[in-house]
């Protein structure tokens, strides 16, 4: 394989990683939303979301369950397919997927453009996704040292 061909495949796998991130966001969004809705309805505490503290707490849960997990899945794939230069490459799948998601949901940001909204809806989810992506990539490529098999040699046998 020539070096240029390797690069081409790397880009392809990174793009697939981005697509995995994008798909995972949608699936996890639906699953998390319906699960949370079911839990809070069953517990009869839907009213708690009238409070800003509870809304922010739910945002924190979403960060962990949706964004870091999506980043992790995209990182798993990309890390499995691309083995070199992980420090640089692992940032792309989440970034691509996130930008794609942002392009579709840009209307949400346009409603009021403020530093607070940028931080809440862009910066923090992106950082969490990147962390997830790196963890996914390094999980696949984490080399674990094999334990050396211990052999028991009987002195009696040796004497024989």
């Amino acid at each position: 394989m020539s070096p240029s061909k390797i690069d081409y495949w790397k880009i392809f796998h990174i793009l697939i990683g981005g697509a995995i991130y994008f798909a995972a966001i949608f699936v996890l969004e639906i699953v998390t939303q319906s699960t949370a809705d079911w839990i809070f309805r069953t517990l009869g505490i839907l009213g708690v979301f009238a409070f800003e503290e509870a809304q922010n707490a739910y945002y924190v849960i979403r960060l962990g369950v949706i964004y870091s997990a999506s980043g992790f899945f995209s990182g798993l794939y990309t890390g499995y397919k691309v083995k070199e230069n992980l420090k640089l490459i692992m940032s792309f799948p989440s970034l691509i997927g996130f930008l794609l998601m942002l392009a579709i949901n840009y209307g949400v940001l346009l409603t009021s453009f403020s530093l607070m909204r940028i931080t809440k809806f862009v910066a923090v989810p992106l950082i969490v996704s990147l962390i997830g992506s790196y963890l996914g990539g390094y999980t696949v490529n984490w080399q674990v040292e094999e334990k050396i098999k211990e052999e028991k040699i009987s002195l009696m046998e040796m004497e024989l």
Partner: protein
Amino acid sequence: MRAKIFGLRLPLAMFILLILSFVIVGSSIIYWTLVCNLVDDGNWLHIKTDACELKFPKKWYMEKGSVENGTAYIVNIFSEDFKTVVHLKFYSRVGTQEFMRKNNLSDASLVPSFNAQRLYNWSLGISENATLHFIEGESNITSFIEEWGKKRGCDIHYLFISIRDAYKKQDTLYNTTGLLISLMIDQRLIEIIFYGEEHSWEENQEYFKLILNSIEVLKAGDIFES
């Protein structure tokens, strides 16, 4: 790159810990918020918004926020089955003037019929066979509202309506009932609408009374003012 935690590769263990910490922190804050705001027998929540303080059942869902460029503040409280809503709208002085001028309303007594027409027009958009009926002297809730108005020391205007075939769901037509109230406090208009599917509306009347009784409108200095 050799470390393992609980038999898991370090990055995987870190990822699991990351998710767990987000979920635990979030759930703890939700629990703490709930516990701090529970009132009465533990089935009601007390909330202070920018326009009022009130209590509502913890099973109900509430949304709130300022609208119309900050000249009005709305609070919507949905019943457990989401078939009935208690809608509160607090106008600032500027907002009140704008609203009255824009809709050619000379005083607050005309607001309930204006809102009834608006609700009916909205229903017509969903179901073209919807018909509007004004109900005279509706049952036990009338005396409660008049009593509530006397306690507040202000003139209360109210209207009962019923919309036949207001909306269609899974080939079944539903009727709705509404109670529309308007009052003025310190030259600021307050709209209260208790509206929903007729059976759900009947069932939630007692809740509505308790919510209404708990409302404390913030004084002019505390309220959002544009």
